[in-house]
């Protein structure tokens, strides 16, 4: 940079208040929450002028992950993971599908776009209120099939207590390893299809080995819990997933549609002359070109699903255990039970999960900006 002029000093001074605000309110507060999570702040005197706080190290986290009373939180966490994954698949898949339909330039495209995107402008509280009524067990969605001559749906939606894909929290490590192995095998197969390289085979071999070992000798891994505790995907969450997809698939649609429109007509023409069908064009040309858009969609949607609070609050009320979510539990623990320290620990767990994908994303976009 050139030598710093008076104007540059003015520029920095203009920015300074914002820097201080962000520094304190974002970074300072995160540190403060982290500190709080390692104290025993809570109980009856928690809201006093100078509440008693003692440093107790990581024991709040230990309680959450392995403690006797943390089972609810663990179920919430598992739920949140399933919730995120199904939201990502649903909203991105559906949004992409609609975007491709609209990319065919049907008549009335503007109307269609408006109809698909309007839920996005609503508050989660509005969405939640309406969808609570939509998913009422003996009405709404469940009786829709009867209008086209089919049986009513028997689903209980938000109050369902059924769980699928259950696993024992004791075997957490084993399960994690199997999941990792699964992804490695998938990645390997993906590579094999595309390239002649040997990297693909290597991924598969390592994946298969990890999976088999974890499956056969998982017993010798340390137990994550002292007793058996089953967790899985609460089907009640499915209703929340549906409402969120309804609200956010329009968003991914808008992202992809903007991306498709940004690709020049020449590119599509070239692909057609090169012998690609419409499907081939999207599969080999358009989607790979829009990888940055897919990435931002994943980031934004994961972020939304991780902090999801309003929608669940409005759809099921705060006390519905079947649709629990750490963001909701954090609120209840902190502001209902006045257990500030544990609430802070839950918040930090959420933050850590978010940070694992947001920090690399920001670093890579920072690097790109500097190119």
């Amino acid at each position, binding site marked *: 940079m050139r030598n710093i002029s008076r104007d540059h000093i003015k520029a920095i001074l203009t920015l300074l208040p914002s820097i201080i605000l*962000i520094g304190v309110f974002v970074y300072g507060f995160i540190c403060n929450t982290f500190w709080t999570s390692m104290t025993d702040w809570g109980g009856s005197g928690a809201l006093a002028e100078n509440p008693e706080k003692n440093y107790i190290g990581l024991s709040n986290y230990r309680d959450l992950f392995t403690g006797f009373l943390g089972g609810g939180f663990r179920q919430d966490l598992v739920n949140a993971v399933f919730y995120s994954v199904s939201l990502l698949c649903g909203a991105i898949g559906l949004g992409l599908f609609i975007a491709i339909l609209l990319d065919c330039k049907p008549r009335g495209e503007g109307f269609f776009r408006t109809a698909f995107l309007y839920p996005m402008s609503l508050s989660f509280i509005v969405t939640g*209120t309406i969808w609570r009524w939509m998913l009422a067990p*003996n009405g709404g969605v469940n009786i829709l099939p009867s209008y086209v001559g089919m049986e009513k749906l028997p689903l209980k939606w938000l109050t369902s207590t059924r769980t699928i894909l259950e696993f024992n929290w004791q075997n957490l490590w084993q399960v994690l390893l199997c999941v990792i192995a699964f992804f490695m095998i998938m990645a390997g197969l993906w590579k094999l299809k595309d390239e002649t390289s040997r990297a693909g085979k290597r991924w598969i071999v390592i994946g298969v080995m990890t999976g088999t070992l974890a499956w056969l000798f998982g017993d010798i891994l340390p137990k994550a819990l002292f007793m058996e505790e089953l967790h899985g995907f609460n089907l009640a969450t499915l209703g929340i997933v549906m409402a969120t997809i309804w609200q956010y698939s329009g968003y991914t649609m808008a992202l992809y549609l903007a991306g498709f429109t940004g690709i020049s007509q020449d590119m599509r023409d070239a692909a057609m002359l090169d012998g690609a069908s419409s499907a081939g064009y999207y599969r080999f040309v358009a989607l790979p070109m829009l990888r940055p858009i897919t990435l931002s969609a994943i980031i934004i949607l994961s972020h939304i699903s991780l902090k999801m609070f309003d929608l669940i609050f409005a759809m099921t009320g705060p006390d519905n255990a079947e649709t629990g979510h750490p963001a909701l539990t954090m*609120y209840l623990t902190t502001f209902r039970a006045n257990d500030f320290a544990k609430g802070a620990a839950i918040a930090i767990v959420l933050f850590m999960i978010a940070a694992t994908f947001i920090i690399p994303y920001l670093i890579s976009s920072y690097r790109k900006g500097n190119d």
Partner: protein
Amino acid sequence: MIKRFSMGTLLLYGTLGLLVIAYLLPAYLAFVTALKLPGEITLPRSWDLPAEMNWKSFSQAFSLLRPNIVNSIILAISATFLSTLLGSLNGYVFSKWKFRGSEIIFTLFLFGMFIPYQVILIPLFQTLRAMNLYGGLPGLILAHVVYGLPITSLIFRNFYAQIPSALIESAMLDRAGFFSIYTRIVFPLSIPGFVVTSLWQFTQIWNEFLWGICLTRYQSNPITVGLAQLAGGQAVSWNLPMAGSILAAIPVLLIYVFLGRYFIKGLLAGSVKE
């Protein structure tokens, strides 16, 4: 391309038609339910049209939610105004007055946009209490302004990146300084940027719930909290929450329908970077 009115076209419009119906169903259900008399609302007949229009639900819901709506209007307008103004200045610095480290600072700003807000909730609550701002609107406005800074700075930075640097440089040769370039050149050019950003901020703040419920006392609750309370009470019949939902949705829906172009721009600016 070869135009063919074939199965493909039929399939396209058929699929789109079905999808549109699916997306509009919740809105339809909200309207018919809001327009029914409480006695007429039963689960098995929830999709039927009302026997007679009961517009009273809306006036009833409005009188119940009026204080919340007033709060939300004050909150959304003032917080939107402040955060947009600050964001504009920040964006101006980030795009036209880059200095060593400004990109890092910008990235650090962006991080504030992606954190789950639960992680700052407890210190925010404590700080507002210590500043005697807890429970009222000023505290909530402060929170929205501060945490709105990343997104507003981002939108303005990307917007100002489109203003050619030659324009700034020629102004500098004309002896304009940091602030006169902003007021005479950049600001007049950024009306669309202000529209995009303020619409985006307005809808975000109008729709926000977590801080509303955690940081305000009853008399300062914004519309979302009011609606949640209205809908949460089990005794209330369904026409009121539905009418309330529609009332709460109207300002943002109006923005979306009439200024949709700008709304979508804000939406894209908040997620796709250059």
